[in-house]
């Protein structure tokens, strides 16, 4: 027993050592040498090589250990018929715990602005915007399985709708909010019609292209969008003509966002377990079988696409009102990738997972300032690691267990 363990450890260390040497060699020139072609100087940073060697050894050790676990787990899963449910999700789905927990969460959220600073409240508003964006993209990607890489385009549509209408016609937040949603949906359908018959990965690329086109148009069509310099002095939300101070306005937006988050959670959770939600899942699992069973694939796809876009449009309006300034730089591909990372990390198809994912990805970098430079690096690495080791994300989407009316069933 001890012997096999020993042998296993030796094997791991040897694998990790090889990987570490390989990676150190691979990264050597880029990590160590830095050429400044303006000053004509070359800096050698040999310390980086040492960091890389040690770091990659540790990471490789973890990688191989996890890989072994994964392979063993897969072999085991083939034998099991009953799904393993993690303790966390079991705990969270038990109504005895879930209800009080939800109530508690709501109370904390409702009291938050009274106990924390403006700065903190602002961060939380951002995080909540990403919760809704994540849930919106979750409908498209997580439920219906349509990889949309141009999701921010709809977010941009919402933001520019408010910014432009406010700038030119002084329309208020509440008037534009539904309009942003409608325009989001409109663009979703507009794009959806031609592209939704494409296969999965082609769809991803076309949506990516569409997102880029929208951004490039915003950047270059100066007469319409004020170009790269963007639009500033957008009104914060008001109510019946009352003008709030910055602080009050932030609190106000906070509560608006809280309401929108709750609404979104409610809507998406209900949709997920409905006739439409089931059709989306079937679509994700097998398009051909789905259509052969009488589901209108095009319609189901359009609905998923439009709903996701609606939420993005809605959030665009809130975003513009919150920051009071927007420009095309807020709507790059990286933004789409980040929202996708939220959905992937949280767990595709799981509402709770997406909420957790959004808070983790938005809040951790804020509070771990030292790491904020490495944020995108870590995002990228996380996406790879999640796909390799835990494709279901933090919280595995669970299927509803339906209550069967035995008498009726005879």
């Amino acid at each position, binding site marked *: 027993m001890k012997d096999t363990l020993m042998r296993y450890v030796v094997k791991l260390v040897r694998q990790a050592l090889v990987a570490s040497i390989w990676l150190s060699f691979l990264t050597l020139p880029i990590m160590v040498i830095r050429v400044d072609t303006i000053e004509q100087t070359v800096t050698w940073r040999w310390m980086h090589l040492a960091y890389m060697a040690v770091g990659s050894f540790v990471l490789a050790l973890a990688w191989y250990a996890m890989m072994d676990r994964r392979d063993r787990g897969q072999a085991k899963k083939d034998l099991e018929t009953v799904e393993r449910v993690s303790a966390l999700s079991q705990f969270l789905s038990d109504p005895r715990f879930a209800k009080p927990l939800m109530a508690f969460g709501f109370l904390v959220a409702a009291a938050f602005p009274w106990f924390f600073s403006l700065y903190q409240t602002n961060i939380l508003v951002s995080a909540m915007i990403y919760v809704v964006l994540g849930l919106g993209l979750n409908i498209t990607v997580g439920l219906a399985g349509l990889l949309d890489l141009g999701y921010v385009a709809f977010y941009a549509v919402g933001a520019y709708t408010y910014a432009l209408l406010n700038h030119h016609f002084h329309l208020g937040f509440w008037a534009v909010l539904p309009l942003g949603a409608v325009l989001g949906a409109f663009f979703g359908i507009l794009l959806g019609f031609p592209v939704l018959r494409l296969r999965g990965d082609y769809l991803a690329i076309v949506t990516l292209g569409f997102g880029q086109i929208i951004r490039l148009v915003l950047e270059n069509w100066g007469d319409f969008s004020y170009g790269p310099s963007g639009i500033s002095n957008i009104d914060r939300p008001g109510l019946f003509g009352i003008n709030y101070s910055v602080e009050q306005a932030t609190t106000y937006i906070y509560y608006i966002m809280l309401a929108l988050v709750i609404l979104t959670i409610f809507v998406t959770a209900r949709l997920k377990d409905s006739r439409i939600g089931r059709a989306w899942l079937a679509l994700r699992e097998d398009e051909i079988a789905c259509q052969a069973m009488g589901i209108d*694939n095009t319609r189901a796809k359009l609905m998923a696409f439009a709903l996701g876009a609606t939420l993005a449009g809605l959030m665009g309006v809130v975003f513009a009102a919150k920051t009071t300034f927007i420009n095309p730089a807020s709507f790059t591909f990286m933004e789409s990738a980040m929202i996708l990372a939220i959905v992937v990390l949280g767990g595709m198809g799981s509402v709770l997972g997406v909420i957790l994912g959004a808070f983790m990805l938005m809040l951790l970098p804020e509070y771990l300032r030292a790491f904020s430079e490495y944020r995108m690096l870590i995002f990228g690495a996380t996406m790879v690691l999640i796909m390799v080791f835990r494709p279901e994300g933090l919280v595995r989407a669970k299927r509803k267990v339906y209550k069967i009316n035995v008498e009726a069933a005879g």
Partner: protein
Amino acid sequence: MAQNTTDMNNQNTGNPVLSVRNVSMNFGGLRALSEVDLEVRPGEVVALIGPNGAGKTTFFNCITGIYTPTDGEVTAYPKTGKRKRANGVRINGMRTNLVCELGMARTFQNIRLFPSMTALENVMIGRHCRTKSGILGAVLRPAATRREEQEVVDNSYELLTKVGLEKLANEYSRNLPYGAQRRLEIARALATEPFLLLLDEPAAGMNPQETEELKQMVIRIREEFKVSVLLIEHDMKMVMSLSDRIYVMEYGRIISTGTPKEVSEDPQVIRAYLGEDDDA
């Protein structure tokens, strides 16, 4: 052997439920189907047999809208529904989901279930085209939607009991044993309330006992749901004892048709099968 299952009384009266006239299918220069004629009458079990690569699955794909036939007429005669017509509905190239909605539901040769949905949910998907609630219904859940949902659940569960899977209702379909997956596909197809059930090699990969059970199940289903069945099958024992009529296909053509007895004595069929397929 075949007699006890062919006691249909209305076999030769009225319209067929499916009529295929002169259907051909070309893929580029390749002629996969050539002038195929086929008919299924109410309450019949019709089998389509033939060596591998004869074009049987292509034929299924042509009559379910997955492919559009290059030539010919495929006409269905639904019993009920808004598309009911006295002289039938032409379904060449109709979208797959509409064909299903019309009342022709199929299973697949290489099982196509929705793996990470439960057995019950798989059947519930079949109910989709017979129910209506939309986004607003899903979000607001008015009484009508709740009632519809409960009906879908109960209905689907009942169908699961018909195919003997009620105990596995909440299992993910990917975890079901092979034979159960095949039966689940049949239950899912039945959930769409078809008048014609299209089974693509339902007994493939089953042992003799499972095959026998499947046969009994198909007989029961025909009686109970008043459906006609068109099946592709390689298991000759099952085909001979289950079918009312058989069509034999080779190289995309129908080379023989008739009762099991007639077909099995046709020299052309014997020639087609000898050396090509030892199932016969």
